């Protein structure tokens, strides 16, 4: 995994997401989810290319049910973009890189 991606948990979520100077794109994922695997390399690329503009965080839903429930995630992969700790936009399902960037660009 790219060093630029941060692993989030129920315990560290607020600290990371609220404390971040840049928007945080949180990937709600699980080991058993095929489409999650598909977007993983896309997120790695975005983390490298947009370093300093956006922080990518990964939250394993199996291990972190509190945050998963708090944001009513009911389908994975779900990506939620947080700015100043507040959710701005939610993307459900795997998407190509171009479309993903387009949908979050307004919030960066």
């Amino acid at each position, binding site marked *: 995994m790219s060093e630029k991606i941060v692993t989030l948990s129920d315990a560290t979520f607020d600290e990371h997401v609220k404390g971040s100077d840049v928007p945080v794109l949180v990937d709600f994922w699980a080991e058993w*989810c095929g489409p999650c*695997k*598909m977007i993983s390399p896309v997120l790695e690329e975005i983390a490298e290319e947009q370093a300093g503009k956006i922080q990518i965080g990964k939250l394993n*839903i199996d291990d972190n049910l509190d945050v998963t429930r708090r944001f009513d995630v*009911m389908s994975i992969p779900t990506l939620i973009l947080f700015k100043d700790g507040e959710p701005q936009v939610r993307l459900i399902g795997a998407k190509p890189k171009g479309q993903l960037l387009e949908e979050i660009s307004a919030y960066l």
Partner: protein
Amino acid sequence: MPERRKVLIIGSGPAGLTAAIYSARAQLEPLVIEGEPSSNSDQPGGQLMLTTEVENYPGFVDGIMGPELMGVMRDQAIRFGAELRTAKVSRLDLSSTPFGAWVGDPEADEATIEADTLIVATGARSLMLGCPNEDRLLGYGVSTCATCDGFFFREQHIAVAGGGDSALEEAMFLTRFASKVTVVHRRDELRASKIMQDRAFKNPKIEFLWNHTIIDVLGDTKVSGITVQDTLSGETSELGVTGLFVAIGHEPNSGLLKGQLELEDNGYVRTFDRSSRTSVDGVFACGDVQDHFYRQAITSAGSGCMAAIDAEHWLEEHGE
């Protein structure tokens, strides 16, 4: 200048990747346009990326996870020199040879790739119900992927739409989480295989609602129920469920091919003489885009092998 290939393969499910393995071993240096991430089955790896355990693929005594199987097939294709590109074909021109394929802007003057032979392995995608609020609630209780989303329905009552093997597989998988699964089917018998029916009828968590169609999904920010209609009496009623999993069948990913080669009335690519040949000389089709009957990983892989061999023979005959 377009890049030139002897063999271009579109799609990367079992059919596309098997065609890639065979044509790469035959030194034809195939290029596979594998698709882009999506959650609706035209993605890299195909429909198996949305499944869990595959129990009936020969060679795996204890079964193998769908995404893992596709991962090893992909590695096998790469090992023999196949090139895979994560992209989508936006346009095809099959009117003259070499065939043209566009990646990215379909309006561009020049094709991105020119190919002597084309292997179409674009697969099929899940059909949706088409009822008013289905789309709005997709991801908020409406799902086409039990393996992705079943987890979120622990101890809840959910509905599955459909009556085929995939519907029963989803229903069975969902009983790991749900307290009750109601299979809503528009007829009074299932088209699923006998073994799946037996398993489903024996499962105490699965109930059947026969002769009903789903006409709407209810819920403000997430699913709270569905409206069903009795196909015999026409009466409508509501069923209080928090999830709806749609498994009513598939449609072929053949949009790119419309008007370019012969399709069956149902949109599937027509192949000829028990081969992978299509109505256009030099274009071959394999996997679910040309098969609405067997639709198995193994038949798909088998037809991918046929397509690679057919393409290889074609190239030999045409002195390439």
